[in-house]
């Protein structure tokens, strides 16, 4: 049906191809040339190649983006490309913070799987065909299951991976089930054609079953309540760079596909049929959003592990973004993407700090952060910026993302009924969220350290964290800086 020939398909997937080539190259270098070298050399080489690979793919996207029509199976539009570049940069940052990681004796395999996961993210972001979405999501998920279990000597890591894999497998099965029903109802796997076909149909019980199942599958990926159960355990058990990857690029890709699916199943036409059909999907999204915001923020209040705390906060943030998806306008879709990207950037930074603290204190408990400002003021300062940005304090980027998102929700014509109430609830909940972010910052700045020794950080890690901090602050001060890339408003 699509007139894609292989040459143009190759051009379109050039970034993915670059990633694949680099992942093979890393295996070759690591297992071929460096097999006898020291562990740290191998990790450094693998990470350097991984960073180069993702930057090369990003440059390829910046310089020669191939735009396609919006009905293709694999779409490339300015906004998709923006998301993909964002994902590649986020992966590069994750790898930059992995140099010193000690959890694995197989650095080549680790970075290879990270790049495979990134390939999955790029494809997920671009896919507009049910089959392709499923395959790309599975590539992403399987890579992440493996990465979660990568710390072979840690029982927690294995447990987290098993939990993640079991939940993931189940939700993937449900989603596939939902996809087959959608196919059965519309006779197509292409989202654009599904949208066209659904616009002429009424709401049937079968459609509702299909939508619920799709929502379950995608809700799992974005860790929305009630499909969030894996998140706290996985965030806690996985190696820190992997958690950063799960919390960042994977989230961005999943939200991108959720936006695409929403656009398909909620027809733009304002016929009564269409609106009642859209209503069922919107109600699903809003239920998940409200539950996520409530449960995420409340459960985070009582956590003692900073990783679990950030996992619940991630659930809450997913709730905010689901509001934007439910609003279903082009602006709100862009706002969700902006939010997801900036949230991911901040989270990577936060997990970078957690990884460093964990390495020296052996724990990610709140108390492990006590007196960090006296042990390493600069590191503490970066964490201050990350957490305040997550809490949505201006002038940091997290605030703009929230403002932009909620303004887009309120502005959407479809939200006159629920917009104000849900936005008000989200803002009230984010006032609550300040409490748990301050719990961490209280340890860092107020309490006395148990161990007064200065905390050493490698220059590369510190430089990466400072870079992320600078980005969070600069984007907060000049939010319009990215306007040509991801438009605000």
């Amino acid at each position: 049906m699509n007139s894609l020939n292989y040459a143009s398909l190759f051009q379109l997937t050039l970034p993915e191809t670059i990633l694949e080539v680099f992942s093979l190259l890393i295996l070759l270098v690591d297992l071929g040339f460096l097999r006898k070298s020291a562990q740290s050399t191998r990790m450094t080489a693998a990470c350097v190649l991984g960073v180069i690979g993702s930057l090369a793919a990003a440059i390829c996207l910046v310089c020669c983006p191939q735009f396609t029509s919006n009905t293709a199976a694999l779409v490339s539009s300015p906004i998709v490309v923006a998301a993909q570049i964002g994902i590649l940069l986020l992966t590069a940052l994750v790898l930059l913070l992995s140099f010193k990681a000690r959890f694995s004796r197989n650095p080549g395999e680790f970075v290879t799987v990270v790049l495979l996961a990134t390939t999955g993210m790029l494809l997920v972001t671009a896919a507009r065909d049910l089959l392709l979405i499923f395959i790309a999501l599975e590539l992403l998920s399987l890579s992440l299951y493996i990465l979660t279990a990568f710390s072979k000597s840690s029982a927690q890591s294995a447990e987290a991976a098993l939990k993640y894999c079991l939940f993931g497998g189940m939700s993937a099965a449900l989603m596939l089930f939902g996809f087959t029903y959608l196919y059965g109802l519309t006779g197509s796997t292409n989202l654009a054609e599904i949208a066209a076909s659904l616009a002429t149909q009424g709401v049937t019980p079968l459609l509702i079953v299909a939508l619920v199942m799709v929502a379950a599958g995608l809700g799992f990926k974005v860790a929305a309540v009630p499909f969030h159960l894996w998140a706290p355990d996985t965030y806690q058990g996985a190696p820190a760079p992997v958690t950063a990857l799960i919390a960042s690029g994977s989230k961005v890709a999943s939200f991108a596909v959720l936006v695409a699916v929403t656009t398909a199943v909620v027809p733009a036409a304002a016929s009564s049929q269409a609106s009642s059909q859209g209503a069922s999907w919107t109600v699903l999204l809003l239920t998940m959003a409200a539950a996520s915001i409530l449960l995420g923020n409340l459960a985070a209040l009582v956590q003692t592990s900073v990783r679990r705390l950030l996992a619940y906060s991630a659930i809450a943030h997913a709730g905010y973004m689901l509001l934007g998806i439910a609003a279903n306008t082009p602006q709100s879709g862009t706002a969700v993407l902006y939010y997801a990207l900036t949230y991911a950037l901040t989270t990577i930074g936060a997990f970078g700090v957690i990884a460093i603290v964990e390495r020296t204190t052996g724990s990610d408990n709140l108390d492990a952060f006590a007196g960090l400002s006296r042990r390493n003021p600069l590191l503490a300062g970066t964490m201050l910026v990350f957490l305040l940005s997550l809490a949505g304090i201006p002038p940091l980027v997290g605030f703009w993302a929230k403002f932009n998102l909620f303004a887009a929700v309120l502005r959407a014509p479809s939200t006159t009924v629920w917009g104000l109430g849900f936005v008000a609830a989200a803002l009230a909940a984010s006032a609550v969220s300040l409490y748990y972010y301050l719990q961490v910052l209280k340890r860092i700045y107020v309490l006395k350290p148990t161990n007064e020794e200065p905390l050493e950080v490698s220059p590369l890690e510190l430089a990466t964290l400072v870079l992320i901090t600078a980005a969070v602050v600069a984007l907060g001060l000049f939010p319009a800086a990215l306007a040509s890339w991801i438009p605000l408003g």
Partner: protein
Amino acid sequence: MLAYTIYLSFAGALALAFWPKALAKSARVFALLVALAGLGFALAGFIAAAGQGSVALADLAWVPALGIHYTLAADGISRVLVLLTGLAAVAGILFSWYIGDKPGDRANEFFAFFLALIGGVYGVFLSVDLFLLFVFYEIAIVPKYFLIAIWGSTRREYGAMKLALYSFAGSAMVLIGLLAAYAAAGSHTMNLQTLAQYPFPISFQMWAFPLVFTGFAILAGMWPFHTWAPTGHVAAPTAASMLLAGVVMKLGAYGCLRVAMTLFPHGLDPWGWSFLGIDSWRMVFALFAVIGIVYGAAVALVQNDFKFVIGYSSVSHMGLVLLGLLTLTQIGIDGAVLQMFSHGVLAGLLFATVGRIVYERTHTRDLGLLSKLQLGKAMPFAAWLFVIAGMASMGLPGFSGFVAEVQVLIGAWRAFPWFAGVAGVGIVVGIAYTWRAMQRAFFSDTPAVDASGAAIPIPVYEPVTWAEKAGVFLLAGTSLLIGLYPRLLLDQIVPAVQALPHAILTGGH
């Protein structure tokens, strides 16, 4: 010129955040210089703009796609409050001079948070773009938490967290109202003047006004949302108490006037039905304000902790500010703005006396214990200082408090006579609690004898330092000056109030 106050404070805060350890002792000198420069700019801007209306300071496109501009301007009200902020900043640093004496004081961090807070406060008073105003408003919240939690005393972590959560909850309410207004008006602009022209439907204003007003009034210490104020004040280090009472509570009152009332004036209109004489949001909030005046004063009357007395007196005095605003009369709002200035100066003075000069030497704030220390003889400077500050705070003619309170009461008499009467009672109770605290702390006739009946010698305390004296003269002098010649400020306040939207000057008719 006024805009430099903002940049200077933030630049100073940034420099202090990266202050080299070797120069730790000089952090306070640097901070004082920055604050003095800020005060200088505030004063220069104040004088230069005499006789003018609103002065535009900056207007740059910030996020053009969202219609958000970096717009700063200052009318008379803003200029008066900026001047107050400059005074409070300098005085606060003078009374924090002890921070930095010991190596573990983290002096550079303290002054960095301090100046960041000050920068945010300057920003709020000067913003015309609502978005910008909100950004500065939130910037001012975060440093308060750290100032109190790190350098505070009694139950500091609790007090700091309570304050931060109350402030943040209030600002969330404000943000809901602003976002709704922004979306309702078509999302083209966040400029206060432009948005104020937009005819929001009455039904919209009827819910948006109380929401935004309450959001700001939480920070102004409005009853029944005032409970953060006494605990926060008591927990805070002296300089932070001075800033909290001196300027941060004014941010709330300023927001009530500048944002809530200006944007949604018809939210003040009667509902069309009444319950026990309460027929509009205006009456509801005026009632809260009056309850705050009396309740704050009554609670201050029975406190044993000296700082709690001052903390509750702040709630009482801020009630007068809110009452003045809600009179919707020229004289009432004039008085409210003047009261903001006056209370800012006097609360700073009282907290400095109690928290710094007395507490640092006696290490107790318990009035029962203080009454045995014969402070009137041991610390004559502090005693006289408290007499002066207390008199001014009671509203004795000759000090700034009197001019302000009289105007508020006249306005209230025209708008709601009953409330004016009750507020007057609150002021009388104010005299009582000040008198009681003064008597017990300094001029107690409790015989100074120990358990065996032997006379306790008058204790000897460290002399009052030059920094403390300088701060005292700055604040007390200002209050006296304004009390004797209120036109210095009123010349700028009155035209600015006249220029407020007509809809909020309709009270008393």
